[in-house]
């Protein structure tokens, strides 16, 4: 394996704000790494540091073993949240423009997009626009692909198709770094890095990150009443269907808080999202939410 992108104990300050605090991160060839964090956790700053758009305050960034430069930029593909397409140009024109800047294949429009090749991008549905942005980012066969919330707003089948493209790039040897707010997307990644307050607070597979975190599951016909009783006791329950899931506590405490309300309680493994909330915000049943 080759390290395509490396952050080596990178720190970035903006005045008094410590946006990225001694972060180590590595993306190897052929792997998809997910970067998770709440807004303000430092994800976007880290990506800008990795892309060489921002200088580090401390520590080093290496792309393909080198400091970021114009040459390393040519080996990168980047899809921003805003997609970075010209809305008044057609997909064909957008790709021709990118080709002139980056080189690579001339005719790279996937077959499914060809019927729409001459419609201005601004008039295409969001899912199609995303596929165009992907095609554009991949046209010069980048070694490293950086995707900022790549499938926001698209339906499940379209999302599966976009992930096919991401996986094909990884299978062909590219390294992929993906940010997302959605845990089902995070679970598509080979490895995850969780950031909070500028630091890496967890890293590894989904199983590594969830570890043995548990929640108390409450099943009762009177869930509305139970929700109120738990709140009154400072236990913050999440509603899933008609069951309540209470993180960061024990069944005994939940039982006491429910009082006379009949309910079946069981402990269950936390989901990635529940563990994420515990790691990043203290959003848990202990009543210490920010």
């Amino acid at each position, binding site marked *: 394996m080759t390290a395509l992108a490396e952050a080596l104990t990178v720190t970035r300050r903006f005045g008094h704000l410590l946006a990225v605090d001694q972060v180590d991160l590595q993306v190897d060839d052929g792997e998809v790494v997910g970067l998770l964090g709440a807004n303000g956790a430092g994800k976007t700053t880290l990506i800008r540091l990795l892309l060489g758009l921002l200088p580090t305050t401390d520590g080093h960034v290496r792309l393909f073993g080198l400091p970021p430069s114009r040459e390393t930029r040519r080996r990168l593909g980047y899809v921003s949240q805003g997609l970075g397409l010209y809305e008044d140009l057609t997909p064909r024109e957008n790709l021709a423009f990118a080709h002139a800047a980056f080189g690579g294949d001339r005719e790279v429009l996937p077959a499914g997009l060809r019927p729409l090749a001459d419609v201005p991008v601004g008039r295409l549905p969001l899912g199609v626009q995303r596929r165009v942005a992907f095609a554009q980012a991949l046209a010069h066969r980048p070694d490293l692909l950086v995707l900022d919330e790549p499938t*926001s707003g698209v*339906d499940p089948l379209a999302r599966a198709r976009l992930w*096919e493209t991401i996986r094909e790039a990884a299978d062909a040897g590219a390294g992929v770094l993906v940010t997302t707010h959605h845990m089902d997307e995070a679970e598509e990644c080979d490895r995850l890095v969780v950031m909070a307050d500028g630091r890496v607070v967890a890293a590894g597979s989904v199983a590594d990150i969830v570890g043995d975190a548990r929640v108390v599951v409450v099943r009762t016909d009177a869930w*509305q009443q139970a929700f109120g009783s738990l709140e009154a006791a400072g236990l913050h329950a999440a509603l899933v269907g008609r069951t309540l899931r209470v993180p960061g506590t024990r069944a005994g405490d939940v039982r006491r808080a429910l009082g006379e309300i009949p309910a079946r309680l069981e402990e269950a493994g936390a989901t990635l999202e529940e563990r994420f909330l515990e790691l990043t915000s203290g959003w848990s049943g202990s009543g210490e*939410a920010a």
Partner: protein
Amino acid sequence: MSWGASDLTVRFGAHLALAGVSLEALEGRVTGVVGGDGAGKTTLLRCLVGAIRPDGGEVRRPDPHRIGYLSSSSGTYPDLTVEENLDFAATTYGVPPEEARRRMAEHLERTGLAQARDRLAGDLSGGMRQKLGVIRAMVHRPDLLVLDEPTTGVDPVSRADLWWLVARAAAEGAAVVLATAYLDEAERASWLLALDEGRILAEGTPEQIASGVPGTIHSASARPGGPAAARSWRRGARWRVWTPPGAQSVATDGAEVVPDLHDAVTIAALARELGGASTGGEAA
């Protein structure tokens, strides 16, 4: 009480935005409407609150002052503070000042907005603004609370706060209808409607939708060849291959998979796509 819509049809010029869509919104229940961009979610929600008159079908809704609605664009006044936004809404709906203050304090506190009560709504982050929008929409304890993609673009921490508000409204007895593009979120609803191009793709509890998948699904390390290629999709590092009832099953190097909601909705969309292709289709 039960609110909802039966057999809705909406046309915008030649475009069929909704075709025979029904939805039932029961009190104390969260009904999820899931679909991608252009699926018809917003049109359905607008019909439900009375902002659009459908070309066909019926809507049952409470009196307008008993509805809470957060549109997909914005539900707040950017040039008013957080507190002014909520005061204005409470006054509009005739909520007694004492009760309005109590609810406001509790909701702001619980969702981390208490420190921001004097900030202009226009200066809030996206997540904070969405939380304010939902608090505002439920300030009068509506019977029907309709939220159009409240969590789109919102980070997971604010999303947890938003879902607390949703649970709170349902616990108070509101029929909540919530649109989202995300299945991991839709999975939390107690009833789910999946829309695609203005039509219902699947409906039921998330468990019912998952267990109602026709045929079988197998895991595979590579995309199969032949006709099964069109019935396969990527799931993490591996592939899923769907075999519809009656189709020739394909030998894969992986085990049969118990479908989850993702598989079910993906298959429903695939089935429509494949069915559309073989019959010449009535693609929109």
